[in-house]
């Protein structure tokens, strides 16, 4: 084992090479974070910001164009679009955060154990393979149609197909980390298994987990919108972005804004989370940058 001196020589990263792009790289996460903060604030303050009751129907005001009273116009039942979008943010964020937390809470311990115990690993991974073979949207649709359209059902329906991804991620990191000489050194030093897991293996999973968490969050918000759009989401009275768009479909040619505004907000929200995830990945683990995280 000898070294080639090209490796020893300091090699500039792309960021070092292009000063101008450096600012762009920093700007993207700041911008994304700012937008997310705005959306969170809008969701929390929906009650104060919304000009109308999002549920109140005004048959005389159906499908109105934007006006002073209705800044974004009204829907087919004469409800204020802006108010409905503001309240809709609550659902999206709740689903995004909820799914992420549950997925990580279940996936992390399973992945750690699978990475360390061969027998458990082979059984658990067969189950995870099977779960990953089921298209997540169809699985979610099935769960929602079986147990009714409450927000909890939707949360579960989105969470279950996401879990195997986290388990696989954590497991693969543990599998490669346990081959590291420093883990062997810890074994030689008489460290107990829980200690090795906690101290030498878990920290390795943290950065990829945070990054993957943002992707889970984005994907959950997207899936919730799709479920609602297909009529398999939370009940249609609740103003969620997907529901607003599902109702707007029939009037798309007359009033495209019914799909445009919630669609735009949804896209911007997911985009911001993804951008934040990409930047986190670059910051937390430069090695991951090359690999591209699992999707």
């Amino acid at each position, binding site marked *: 084992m000898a070294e*080639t*001196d*090209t490796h*020893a*020589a300091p090699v500039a990263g792309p960021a070092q090479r292009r000063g101008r792009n450096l600012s762009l790289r920093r700007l993207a996460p700041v911008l994304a974070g700012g937008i997310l903060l705005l959306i969170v604030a809008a969701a929390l303050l929906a009650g104060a910001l919304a000009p109308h009751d999002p549920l109140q129907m005004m048959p005389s005001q159906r499908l109105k164009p934007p006006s002073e009273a209705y800044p974004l116009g009204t829907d087919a039942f004469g409800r204020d679009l802006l108010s409905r979008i503001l309240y809709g943010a609550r659902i999206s964020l709740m689903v995004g955060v909820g799914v992420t937390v549950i997925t990580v809470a279940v996936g992390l311990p399973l992945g750690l154990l699978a990475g360390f115990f061969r027998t458990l690993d082979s059984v658990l991974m067969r189950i995870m393979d099977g779960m990953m073979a089921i298209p997540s949207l169809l699985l979610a649709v099935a769960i929602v149609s079986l147990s009714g359209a409450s927000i909890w059902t939707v949360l579960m329906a989105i969470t279950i197909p996401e879990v195997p991804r986290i388990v696989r991620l954590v497991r693969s990191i543990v599998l490669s980390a346990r081959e590291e000489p420093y883990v062997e*050194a810890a074994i030689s*030093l008489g460290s107990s298994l829980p200690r090795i897991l906690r101290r030498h293996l878990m920290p390795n999973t943290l950065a990829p987990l945070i990054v993957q968490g943002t992707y889970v969050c984005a994907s959950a918000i997207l899936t919730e919108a799709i479920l609602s759009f297909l009529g398999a989401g939370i009940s249609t009275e609740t103003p969620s972005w997907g529901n607003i768009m599902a109702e707007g479909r029939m009037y798309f040619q007359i009033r495209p804004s019914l799909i445009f505004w919630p669609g735009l907000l949804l896209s911007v929200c997911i985009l911001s989370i993804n951008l934040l995830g990409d930047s986190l990945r670059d910051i937390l683990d430069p090695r991951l940058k090359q690999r591209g995280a699992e999707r």
Partner: protein
Amino acid sequence: MSAPILSVRDLVVGIGPDAASPIVLDGVSLDIAAGETLCLVGESGSGKSVTSLAVMGLLPRGALVARSGRVLLEGEDLLAADRRRLRALRASRMAMIFQEPMTALNPVMPVGRQIDEVLRAHTSLTPAERRRRVLSMLEQVHLPDVARVFASYPHQLSGGQRQRIMIAMALILEPKLLIADEPTTALDVTTQKEILRLVHELQEKQGTSVLFITHDMGVVAEIADRVCVMHQGTVVETDTVDAILRAPRKDYTRRLLSAVPSLTPRAPRPVASAEIVLETVELGKVYARRRFLRRAEETVAAEAVSFALRRGRTLGIVGESGSGKSTVARCVMRLVDPTAGAIRVKGRDISSLSRSALQPHRKRIQMVFQDPYRSLNPRVTVGESIAEGPTNYGVPRDAAFARARSLLEIVGLPPDAITRYPHQFSGGQRQRIAIARALAMEPDVLVADEAVSALDVSVQAQVLALLDDIQERLGVSLLFITHDLRVAAQICDDIAVMQKGRIVEYGAASEVLTAPRQAYTRQLLDAAPGRDWDFARFMPREPAAPAAAPVADVAKPSGGH
């Protein structure tokens, strides 16, 4: 000297195109005459590989940029040449072979096609003619059964064969200049010897000039006409090989040569204690790969390995890759479970103890790993790393840290190292930390698995001196695994030579290295490059007289099998 084939003048290479950023080559100049071998030597970071890549125009794009100077190949400035011209020159006028023949060949393409590509890119021969030429080139590099090799993938060939393929690829168009970047470093000594001979043979035949990059003074002594010593991006001195080895003018060259360990074994040390701290009896390890719907494949990694290590002594296990020397180390550490035989630590057999029953015995044997960049957890401070072991055995945290501090002093690191992280240290310093971590357990035996192989010679010499010093002060026994006979000669009292999982020769270092009884040991010694030179004394080595050391200090002499 007639007009040189290659002439590098005041070459400056910097990081990125920005003139303000640091430079890695600072005004390098060298010449190579027709048919000559110039060895470029230096430690890591000296810029020797960057120089070769700059000549080929292969510097990583955007990351390293040639800022000024000239690179003249037969008078033509390569730095001024455009891409198309450079492409035309590569392989036809200048060619290159690399360190790792496994990774330097495309794993998914048959090797014959990879050589054929050179002809396709640079000649207008018909497919039949090209095939004929490739096959004839394969014969010239002495590969057997060339038609089969032509259709083989790299993974189906041995390391030596792969390097022969690389050489065939490089020399098929008979270029004027061959650049060889550490081409034998990844190979075993016996293979290295054959490859060096092959390069020399083809060089004679084709009249090629060779720029040979190496860190190994032994190789330099074997093949160089002239030597160019590099250090931190500059040329220290350039001279004939004899002048460099006998009378170096510069301090740096003297220091570099002085650090090269001698093949002459150390003077025998008296046996201080008769206590055997570690003993293996007929130790064996068979790897069985069970495959679904297929018979289990068995690989014998170690077989009937018996040795004994006394308190305060150093036993070296030497052998080429695949000899099973690391398997033995890992069995002794119980990082893998042996499949046969016994491992006695202070008389107690630990070979089949359960995880929990093993716990009290673990601390008696500690290990120093090969790669200091991977054996320390990058997220844990040096102090925590060293204190981890003792705290596992109930030492209070404060006491463990106090011990860590004193150990850092013993291994020659400043006390403030305790709160820092591994990435803040160099490779040699990290290996010192790893040694301190092992010593924190107050072990009876320290297993060092190629512990100095990844280090530059000067650092290597310091770490070897440290190990010696520690042994003196603490009376610890060393089980030293290495492929490097020079290193073994400098540190070992006894040596066991392993081949194909078995110990073929076992005895006092002075005997094994000077009067080997087994053909394989002789072959190894014979292949050691520069075996006739004593670099540190700047003169050829005297033919060593068989040592008069008594055989009695070998606990269990055993002949070959």
